[in-house]
């Protein structure tokens, strides 16, 4: 409904579990689906299966991934760069995102402002998003207009013009974005400082939008330098999903992106988080009306399993665990804390397991009316403890698995979602093939494995707790509240 277009930081929080759980696809999913429910009443033709992902590697190192979906004469094109906050260092936080803003300015070929006109004239919806691990640009359009969008995307990969005057204005826009997104939102501020405390040396400690002081010190040269270093075909993935011919798309990609040379990329240091040796607590006092709690346990990610650092099943067990706690209205948090004891106005759990580096299992909560924060905190931690001492029931496990399977089908309804999934998996190093592993991986999880990962990872030594304590919003209340 709202037509305002935001340069979005959409997956700012990384891929939340609910995103992935309801979004993964697989060419074999329907087969699994039928097998899981032990029936096969849905006997459609071939189109009941999701089409495969076509893959090509251009000579310059750019990867091209194409997936056909002929339901409607539309397509989405996305260009993904493996660059985001987690590649930045202190003092330049937010640079990847600021560069994303600059990408909507002029190129050598198209003056500033022309880009948006061109995109508009082909009826495309376009935008971009930056996360900790990647930056992506996209157009959603009528499939027969694909080539025009590809030309534009290829042009701005290498030919962007950095006008200092434009940067000066755009960085002000970014600062407004920061005020709007974070500074005036108590729960966002809590999340920002929570991450900064939970991670000591991992780059995941920095906010995607950047610290305000870093934005203030940012120069057009910084953005240009970042662009030159990272916006190169061998650091990019082109994803196209829709009513397209994969071979033609690949030929088109060669024509427009194939002209660029591959460039050496800077070395990416490991920056593995040092092991946490005890609980970390912070308190934020802000003008606000609602108390808010955020707790996180350090966990391995899907990437850790891929690298062989943990057992293959562990991340899947963590994923299912998050959904046992918070996978809908019948999950434990809703059933026990929101209804049952009625001590939470809201409570959530999410496994941040889909980045290029390990992250956390995060539990959040807002106390119900007249309930002390300490009561809610204890109840949330008690729910975690129960996972360590009692096996989850068959019916709970079955429910989560049914949701994962259904979610996989539902998400195929959106070509944008499919493209985003393919691009993000590829960009964090899991590879798009991971889509085929996800559903079987979840279905194989046992109650014992959930207990095992709860015992191993959801421990106090690896816990960070951030609490928001509301201060009065206005002076009148202030005076009343003063003691």
């Amino acid at each position: 409904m709202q037509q305002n277009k935001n340069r979005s930081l959409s997956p700012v929080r990384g891929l939340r579990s609910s995103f992935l759980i309801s979004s993964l696809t697989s060419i074999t999913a329907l087969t699994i689906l039928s097998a899981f429910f032990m029936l096969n009443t849905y006997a459609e033709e071939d189109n009941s299966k999701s089409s495969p992902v076509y893959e090509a590697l251009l000579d310059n190192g750019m990867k091209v991934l194409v997936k056909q979906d002929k339901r409607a004469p539309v397509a989405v094109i996305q260009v993904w760069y493996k660059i985001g906050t987690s590649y930045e260092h202190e003092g330049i936080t937010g640079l990847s995102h600021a560069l994303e803003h600059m990408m909507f300015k002029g190129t050598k070929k198209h003056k500033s402002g022309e880009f948006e006109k061109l995109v508009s004239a082909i009826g495309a919806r376009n935008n971009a998003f930056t996360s900790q691990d990647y930056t992506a640009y996209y157009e959603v359009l009528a499939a027969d207009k694909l080539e025009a969008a590809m030309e534009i995307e290829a042009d701005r990969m290498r030919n962007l013009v950095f006008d200092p005057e434009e940067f000066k204005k755009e960085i002000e826009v970014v600062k407004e974005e920061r005020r709007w997104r974070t500074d005036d939102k108590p729960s966002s501020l809590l999340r920002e400082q929570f991450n900064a405390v939970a991670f000591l040396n991992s780059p995941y400690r920095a906010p995607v939008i950047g610290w305000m002081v870093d934005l203030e010190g940012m120069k057009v040269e910084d953005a240009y330098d970042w662009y030159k270093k990272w916006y190169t075909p061998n650091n990019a993935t082109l994803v196209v999903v829709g009513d397209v011919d994969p071979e033609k798309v690949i030929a088109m990609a060669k024509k427009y992106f194939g002209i660029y040379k591959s460039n050496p990329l800077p070395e990416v240091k490991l920056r593995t988080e040092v092991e946490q040796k005890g609980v970390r607590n912070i308190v934020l006092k802000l003008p606000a009306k609602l108390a808010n709690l955020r707790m996180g346990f350090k966990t391995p990610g899907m990437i850790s399993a891929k690298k062989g650092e943990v057992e293959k099943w562990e991340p899947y067990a963590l994923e299912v665990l998050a959904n046992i706690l918070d996978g809908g209205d019948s999950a434990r948090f809703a059933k026990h804390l929101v209804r049952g004891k009625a001590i939470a106005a809201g409570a959530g759990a999410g496994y941040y397991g889909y980045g290029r580096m390990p992250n956390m299992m995060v539990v959040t909560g807002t106390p119900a009316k007249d309930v002390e924060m300490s009561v809610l905190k204890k109840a949330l931690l008690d729910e975690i403890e129960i996972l360590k001492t009692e096996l989850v029931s068959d019916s709970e496990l079955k429910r989560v698995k049914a949701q994962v399977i259904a979610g996989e089908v539902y998400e195929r309804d959106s070509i944008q979602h499919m493209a985003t999934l393919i691009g993000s998996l590829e960009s964090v190093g899991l590879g798009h093939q991971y889509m085929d592993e996800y559903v079987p991986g979840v279905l194989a999880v046992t109650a014992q494995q959930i207990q095992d990962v709860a015992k191993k990872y959801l421990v106090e030594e690896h816990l960070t707790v951030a609490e928001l304590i509301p201060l009065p919003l206005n002076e009148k209340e202030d005076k009343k509240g003063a003691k």
Partner: protein
Amino acid sequence: MKSLIRSAFIALIIAFNQLASAAPKIEHWVTDSGLRVYYVNVPELPILDARLTFAAGSAYDGDKAGLSGMVTGMLDKGAAGLNADQIAEAFESTGANFSTGAARDMAWINLRTLTLKEQMQSALEIWQKVIEKPAFPEADFERLKKQALVGLQAEKQNPSSIADKVFYKNLYGDHPYASPQNGTEKSIAALSTKDLKAFFKQYYVNKNGQLALVGAIDRQQAEEIANKISKALLSDNKGEGKKAAPIPEVKPLTEAKTIRIPFPSTQAHVMIGQPGDKRGDKDYFALYLGNHGLGGSGFTSRLMKEIRVKRGLSYSVYSYFIPMQENGPFMLGLQTKLSQTDEAIKVAREVLEKFQKEGPSEEDLKASKLNIVGGFPLRTASNKDIIGYIAMIGFYGLPLDYMDTFTDKVEKVSRDQVVDAFKRRVHVDKMLTVIVGGKAVEKEDAQEKQ
């Protein structure tokens, strides 16, 4: 095979006519008990989306603000002998998604399920129960009331929510659209399950409802589902029921008004507006097309260019019409750091005033048409998009060929028609301006700012 034929057909249309929208084919009928049904067959994915809507939004709350939302919130808290846990379990164990909601005009009950026989049957059965016999249990209601109060607290710490509330209140005065959707502390505390039951009995009836169905079910299945739901709506001796009384006409604003609300934020949230247009409005296309270039098209819009691109004053700036049963708001919005508030408002007003006087250039109009027409296929690209449209068409009684004729109608709007519509419908000297943010100012100052 089917999909092959369909895409070949689509390719053919595109070859002959770039404007072809391949809009989904809507089938419409009325059940014996008077429920209007809108159905689109989309066979490709094994999904069914169902949406039951009623004219039962907050515009019907009367003096019980928040009632409509509490009714939708309570539907799955108990029905046909099942409690909230059992209902949630029943939906989710098949992988189905159940949701409800209410806006100003309407309330809705949604279901998304796989069309695998067993899953679909089970999900539809529980959906039907919730629609047929919600129990509105006291204990759940007391808890929900407390949650609603927490929700109101959340609104109070959010400058954008505060602005929105104040905006509607002052835009609509004593009109039902002014009623705060989530109620007030007082109105929520005064609600009882008796109120909810009475509201449900009056408004959740066949004659006041529409059922939209989209997905991999055939016409016969769609009819069976519709008949079951329609029958469920007869329970409790409701009969076919009555259509809700029409919403009164919206009175235009008579003078300019500026309201400043102090708030400890770094930005000011600004909303400027007036009553706009309604669904099926004779000026709908002229206003929609005109606004596209003014503030409805993102970066190519005038507001975005002047406020954000040229001056870096705001991250987001937009204008839009929200057509409703009666005139919904026309509004312009932005957020900017406190010290820039007056400058941003000044620029926004200048852009609006110039546009209202002169309208778009021929070139701008052409660009807007290209964007709207070229992007039209995106609007019905997914099942979710399709059900959104057919539910809207059904609810507001728009013609069934609404989607088929949309681009044609946009194409036919002339620059003169846009200029004329904006002159008649937008009154720049009688706008409501709401500003949330900054320190409290003395009364006289606030007056002066007008």
